[in-house]
């Protein structure tokens, strides 16, 4: 969006200190070549130290046979070439098989969670577009899961899912008699649904918040015109509200997808260092490969593979949605 302004050439003031601002200037845009870089410098340095350098190190580590013996001086770890990658994608071997399983679990978990978060968040925002008694209070209540610290909220869910003293079994078994005997929720197959419940409970308010913000940008004339033409409320929602939300939804779904896919906090607090097989999300899986079984090289290779996958998905998504937008504009 930012092509160069018609200002090339003349340098109004020497770059550097803010004091230089007192130099000669013209009305309109004032250009100081160095100033923007100076303003960016802290952000750049930090990004470099905490994101870019570690990323390079991470990629380098993935080519090494990095076990706990080399952790003090990881540069001396033996080179393993593509060995870690081969191990990770060898789906017949135990490591690759487990990674593939965890990947598939993560994909289905993410799709379900994002879909439900979007559905609940959008419905709530659309239902609460009008004023009615108690709307402000409800909105505050709905934001509580988003505001609660993850560990406090997830620990409470972990308590509710306890086998002997949890609320969920008490209600399902003792009170509603829906199950023959109390179920296990934090181990075994049910753990997938437990994780999904917590993730949706925690995640939908963000969708609610974003959609609510998006709804404010829809001009009310559209609704008035539609109402005059005889469109009912449901029709207005279907024909005006939802289509107008499209650009918002494109960003929202992508952000929700990335956050859910990479989520570590929820499964970690719910299950601990190793998740049950049915809920073995990829970030926990990599954490375990690295910090529990002490194979940092393989863990790094898995991280890089995960990053590649996310890059491809995000790129494809952006391509499709911007193409979709262009088609809509044409």
């Amino acid at each position: 969006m930012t092509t160069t302004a018609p200002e090339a050439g003349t340098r109004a003031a020497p770059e550097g200190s803010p004091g230089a601002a007192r130099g000669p200037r013209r009305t309109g845009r004032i250009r100081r070549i160095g100033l923007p870089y100076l303003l960016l410098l802290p952000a750049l340095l930090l990004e470099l130290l905490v994101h870019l350098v570690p990323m390079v190190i991470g990629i380098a580590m993935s080519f090494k046979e990095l076990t706990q013996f080399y952790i003090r001086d990881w540069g001396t770890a033996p080179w393993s070439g593509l060995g870690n990658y081969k191990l990770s994608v060898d789906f017949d071997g135990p490591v690759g098989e487990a990674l593939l399983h965890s990947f598939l679990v993560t994909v289905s978990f993410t799709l379900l969670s994002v879909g439900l978060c979007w559905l609940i968040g959008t419905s709530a925002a659309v239902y609460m577009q009008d004023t009615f008694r108690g709307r402000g209070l409800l909105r505050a209540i709905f934001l509580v899961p988003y505001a609660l610290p993850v560990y406090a909220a997830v620990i409470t869910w972990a308590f509710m899912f306890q086998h002997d003293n949890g609320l969920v079994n008490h209600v399902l078994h003792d009170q509603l008699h829906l199950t023959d005997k109390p179920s296990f929720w934090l181990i075994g197959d049910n753990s997938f649904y437990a994780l999904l419940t917590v993730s949706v409970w925690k995640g939908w308010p963000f969708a609610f918040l974003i959609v609510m913000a998006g709804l404010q940008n829809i001009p009310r004339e559209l609704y008035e015109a539609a109402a005059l033409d005889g469109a009912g409320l449901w029709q207005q929602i279907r024909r005006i509200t939802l289509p107008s939300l499209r650009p918002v939804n494109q960003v929202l779904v992508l952000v929700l997808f990335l956050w859910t896919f990479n989520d570590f906090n929820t499964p970690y607090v719910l299950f601990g260092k190793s998740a049950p097989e049915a809920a073995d999300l990829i970030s926990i899986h990599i954490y375990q490969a690295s910090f529990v079984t002490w194979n940092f090289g393989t863990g790094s290779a898995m991280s890089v593979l995960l990053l590649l996958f996310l890059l491809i998905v995000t790129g494809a998504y952006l391509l499709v949605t911007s193409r979709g937008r262009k088609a809509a504009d044409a």
Partner: protein
Amino acid sequence: MPSTVAASRPQHRTPTSPMAPPRSFLWSRRIFLTLLTGFVLLPVYVMVSSSLKPLQDVSGKFRWLPSGLTIRPYIDIWSTVPLARYFMNSLVVAGTATVCSVAIAVFAAYAVSRYSFRGKRVFTITVLSTQMFPGILFLLPLFLLYVNIGNATGIALFGSRGGLILTYLTFSLPFSIWMLIGYFDSVPRDLDEAALVDGCGPLGALFRVVVPAAIPGIVAVAVYAFMAAWGEVLFASVMTNDATRTLAVGLQGYSTLNDVYWNQIMAASLVVSVPVVAGFLLLQRYLVTGLTAGAVK
């Protein structure tokens, strides 16, 4: 928390609206919102009620109402684990990270929003793309990097609050910069250009004109940064030691090999949540307006 946004913006269907909502809409709304409220508040109820129960209540079958109310858990939480210290650590880490990250993001976003310069696109794309990287990808290298910097220079990053602050502040930075660029773009350029003409330096224009006009966006970003740091678990559990442990890790101390003090866990969860939730609800209207201008466009 009366809704301030509702009062300050035009509603879509005012009483003058030609059509009242149909019954089907009202009924489905009533049912949906009731169920959702129940779903949202269930854990909150469990947290509050269990925190007031004696230990035998939370160890046995779940009961909706306590057999006897007690505030004992609220007294015991401070001695079972050093909760006050964890609280202090969390406060220092999250507070410092928030202040620094907002300040740095304001400068960076101002540069991107108001100046054209070489490398701008590369910068914004790089910043944005770090959002998609899994935290686990950074954990290991950062762990090694901090250890190595510590060995080489004697600056203790690993295990210190400083290392954690540094980490957290960059995690909220990309989102903050991105939001603030959008927000600053919505502040009319004429305003700060007029300030420049009147003799302000660029920083004067930023602090006297742009920042005051962008307060909702800045508050939204600060709330986000604080919550992200207050709630982070992964880095807190690897990169802290006994002295620097934050609440996120400290709360695990209430389960011992023999007993899980669920009533104390719930009491402690409530105590660490109340400040954040209260602050968040107080500032929520900024969050909605901030998101509208910053992220949604």
